[in-house]
């Protein structure tokens, strides 16, 4: 097999995207066929190449070490997952986007986004990686905009937040190039022992975790859940963004930098992960909308991945990457269930939903499996990956473990609430009219739910096949099978049971399933904090925007002052000078005689001074 096959997973979606864009907008059958055909073909090529070590490079690209180098190794093997999720997202959208205004734009940019994410994971040169990585920004903007005119502020917000992080990444790459003298990712391996290397790591880490959706770069995601078409959420924030961001974080910790467990930077990353887990899950718990609730979980769960990979321990990295795959599976499945509800019931407002389980049984079962998986119920996939992350966190410090376990408690609580309100309970008026979703939407749901089960009950398949090869020689033993630390597993199960008890308490106290989290929502300290957060008062985007406005005002004032200097001061002086000289011309002869005498004396004095000098 020629190594140039590595181009195909990037090229095929790209060509598909172009074909979608040139297809007349009325011809949706041809457009859907192109989309499915090319994303399917890309999936096939990634399956064919999976597990192989391939590299491809052209003679020259942009010069100065900026070469077009692609490389497939264990870590970039995750492109298979990318291709798979792209295919499912498109299949789902064939039904979901039917009759929507900007369908062609959506299809075309999903394919383009897939090409860029695949490229960023295959790139073996930092500049090529940046090229694909930042190419996604325009795609992000266009995809959110496909939600219609109301999505403009959200799309701009998403772009500005992502760009901020991505320019940190650019600066990081610049410093890496300065310190290592190379852009070839295979040869870069910087020790974290001086300021600039640490600076480069932090800058690149910001780029990676922001892409994955970690705090404080997350605030566009809940907004996009409302404004963007739903398959977008399952496609980018739930799946591909996580895959790309966590991929890069793992690349940083495994290869580009010599990260030591327990070092200051490692603890920083872990703290970031913990903050993301706990704050986002609290926000999820108080949501009253299906999609917004899920979107906060998409943020919270990334905290586990960052926590795991941040430990720099083999068990943590394996756990983080495994969690990344699992999260993409169950979170996409959950978003797809939300899309089915939105399309069939016409709303995702939890106060109007209820008893959908009997009307949409297939969607319901898939939802249940995915919700159990995200909550970490054994023996589903989420349980096993969370156990690995818990174990790793505990090895570093018990505080991290406690926060992570607390996060699991709230996750379970919020999904009990969601399941209880939307799927169980009394059938509402809205639910009466709902029917089961059409098959192109059910297929992705069923496939994803199946994998949630499979990757749990038979976890050696993903662990041996996909995750553990990424560590190479750093892996001393396999983490497949049952959890190794029975104490941690026992506590996890106890946490889940506590969450169930909490749910019963909440329902009983408030009298409704929707109010099951009210006793936490309106708890003394939490109430004002959560209210401020929900109102956007803690949104760094708003805060930074306000700071930026003041900054711009100051700069614009400087600019005005400079202009004043020319328009008023310089012209004023010139005019005054002119008037002064004008006044000297008095038309009285003896004045002119005086000027001549004064001038003559001045010239004479200057002449003698000149000779004397």
């Amino acid at each position: 097999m020629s190594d140039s096959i590595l181009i195909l997973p990037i090229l095929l979606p790209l060509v598909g995207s172009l074909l979608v864009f040139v297809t007349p907008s009325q011809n949706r059958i041809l457009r859907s066929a192109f989309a499915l055909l090319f994303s399917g073909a890309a999936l096939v090529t990634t399956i064919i190449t999976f597990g192989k070590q391939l590299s491809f490079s052209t003679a020259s690209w942009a010069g100065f070490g900026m070469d077009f180098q692609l490389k497939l190794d264990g870590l970039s093997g995750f492109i298979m997952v990318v291709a798979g999720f792209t295919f499912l997202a498109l299949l789902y959208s064939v039904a979901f986007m039917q009759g929507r205004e900007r369908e062609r734009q959506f299809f075309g940019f999903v394919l383009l986004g897939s090409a860029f994410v695949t490229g960023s994971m295959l790139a073996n040169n930092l500049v090529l990686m940046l090229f694909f990585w930042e190419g996604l920004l325009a795609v992000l903007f266009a995809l959110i905009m496909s939600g219609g005119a109301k999505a403009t502020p959200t799309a701009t917000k998403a772009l500005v937040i992502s760009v901020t992080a991505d320019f940190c990444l650019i600066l990081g790459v610049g410093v890496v190039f300065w310190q290592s003298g190379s852009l070839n990712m295979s040869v870069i391996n910087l020790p974290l022992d001086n300021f600039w290397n640490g600076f480069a790591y932090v800058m690149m880490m910001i780029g990676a975790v922001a892409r994955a959706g970690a705090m404080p770069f997350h605030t566009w995601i809940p907004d996009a859940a409302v404004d963007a078409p739903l398959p977008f959420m399952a496609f980018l924030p739930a799946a591909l963004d996580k895959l790309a961001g966590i991929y890069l974080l793992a690349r940083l910790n495994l290869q580009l930098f010599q990260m030591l467990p327990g070092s200051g930077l490692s603890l920083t990353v872990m703290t970031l992960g913990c903050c993301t887990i706990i704050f986002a899950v609290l926000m999820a718990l108080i949501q009253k909308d299906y999609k917004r609730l899920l979107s906060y979980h998409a943020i919270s769960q990334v905290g586990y991945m960052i926590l795991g990979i941040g430990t720099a321990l083999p068990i943590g990295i394996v756990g983080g990457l495994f969690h990344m795959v699992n999260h993409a599976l169950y979170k996409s499945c959950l978003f797809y269930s939300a899309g089915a509800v939105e399309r069939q019931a016409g709303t995702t407002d939890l106060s109007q939903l209820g008893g959908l389980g009997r009307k949409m049984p297939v969607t319901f079962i898939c939802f249940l499996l995915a919700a159990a998986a995200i909550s970490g119920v054994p023996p589903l996939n989420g349980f096993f990956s969370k156990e690995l992350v818990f174990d790793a966190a505990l090895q570093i410090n018990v505080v991290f473990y406690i926060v992570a376990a607390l996060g699991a408690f709230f996750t379970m609580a919020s999904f009990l609430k969601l399941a209880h309100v939307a799927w169980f309970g009394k059938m509402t008026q809205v639910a009466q009219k709902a029917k089961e979703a059409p098959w192109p939407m059910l297929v992705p749901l069923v496939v994803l739910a199946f994998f949630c089960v499979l990757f749990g009950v038979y976890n050696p398949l993903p662990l041996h096949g996909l995750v553990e090869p990424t560590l190479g020689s750093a892996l001393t033993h396999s983490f497949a099978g049952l959890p190794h630390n029975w104490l941690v597993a026992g506590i996890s199960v106890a946490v889940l049971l506590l969450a169930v008890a909490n749910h019963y308490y909440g329902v009983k106290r408030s009298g409704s399933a929707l109010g099951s989290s009210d006793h936490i929502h309106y708890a003394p300290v939490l109430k004002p904090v959560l209210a401020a957060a929900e109102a956007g008062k803690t949104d760094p985007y708003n805060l930074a925007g306000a700071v930026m406005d003041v900054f711009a005002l100051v700069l614009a004032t400087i600019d005005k002052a400079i202009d004043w200097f020319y328009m008023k001061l310089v012209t004023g002086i010139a005019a005054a000078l002119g008037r002064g000289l004008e006044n000297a011309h008095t038309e009285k002869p003896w004045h002119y005689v005086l000027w001549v005498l004064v001038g003559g004396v001045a010239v004479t004095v200057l002449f003698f001074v000149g000779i004397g000098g």
Partner: protein
Amino acid sequence: MSGLILLAILAPVVGAFILPPVGKLSRRLRDLLALALVLVAFICSASLLPSALAGEPAYLQVVLPLGMSFGFLADGLAIFMAMISSFIGGIIVLYSISYLDNSEHTHEYYLMVTLFLGAMMGLVYSTNILFIYIFWEISAISCWRLIGFYREPDNILRADKAFLTTVFGAFVMLIGFLLIYSQTGTFDLMEMQGVSISNATVLLILVGIFSKSATLPLHTWLPDAGVAPAPVTSLLHAAVLVKIGVYAYARLFLFGFAIPEVWSTVVPVIAAISALVAAGAAMRANDLKRIIAYSTVSQIGFIFLGLATGNPLSAAGGLLYILMHGLAKGGLFLCAGIVEHNAHTKDIRELGGLIKTMPITAVSFLVCGLSVMGLPPLGGFFSKFMVISGSVTAEHPWIAAVFIVGTLMTIIYLMRAFCAVFLGTPKLGIVVREGSKTMVASVLGLAALSLVAGLLIFYPSLFVQEIVAQIGWLGL
């Protein structure tokens, strides 16, 4: 071969003066002749390229006593600048044809535009600093007439402001040139390679360069020049005027004199302040053309950063930036021109929702905007990355960080302008139509080229690498 240099200069400079009489016969013939003259300059420059890349640049010299020898040299840098200017200039002339269909003074317009581009050709090929000065001033005169094209009192005031600022700068620069003459006894650049010059001389020349390239604190004339017709502002920002200063910087300080080490820090600091202040002003402006104009001031800072740090990567990035910025900024102004031409306003608060009626202009604006922002796969990404990365490598990581902030502000103000003008709901009572065929073709062409320059980065990058390789002291 060297005759081609003269043709590239004289065709537009001399040809410009036969345009008004031709225009008396036929306006259409005059328009096409103007386009042809600019294209002659482009084709001549392009055909000089192979020998320049082969290391044998065409050179024409007239030896005179007292250091007055002058000549014309077509090396990589000169051809690079000449090709960019004449090509973008050609597109702008094409765009002007229907833009100015109903205007007065069009004879003078074509005369001045063609003369302007001719002066640019003369400036880039000259090897004598007095000749550089003379062409510099010719461009100032053209610029003065073109900014005041509509002859309103306010337009004339702003044209005077631009003229006075740039001519003041040029006089100061001339003093610098005279100091060089008193030191070396010649005006011929070819005899000055590697000659060390003093801080005072560098400062005097920089005043000229900064006034022409609209860098803080000599930049305020450029945003005011937005009263000119859109093709003129496009010409000033993308093809000719502000590129003269950066070209002079490259010609004098990269290829010519050896300047004291301190300038590799001072110029980037000035450029950083200029980039930030202009970006802040752009964020507060409500006039579409002012926003884009401040953006030019800001982006010129990136070019100076690239050229000044003394690192091969950033120097290549700075040169590449001239190309990418020229294409994208030219496109932005021409798009703004279509908006202004058909909506009769350029206040972004009054505009909105134009993407529905002018989709090609909107998409072209966005693509050009993304290139100015420096997002891949557009060409602007590479130039921006090379400048940033190169200045980090030149041990200026903090200055690079300031420029990252500038880049972020670029994205904010350009997205703000795009969203306000093209997205949202239409606020004007009238239906704003798409521009004429040639106008739309011009903006689409520039947007497409911004994309192609990024996708096929290999070729422009190879070109600038060749140019940078000719700068001996960078050690490439």
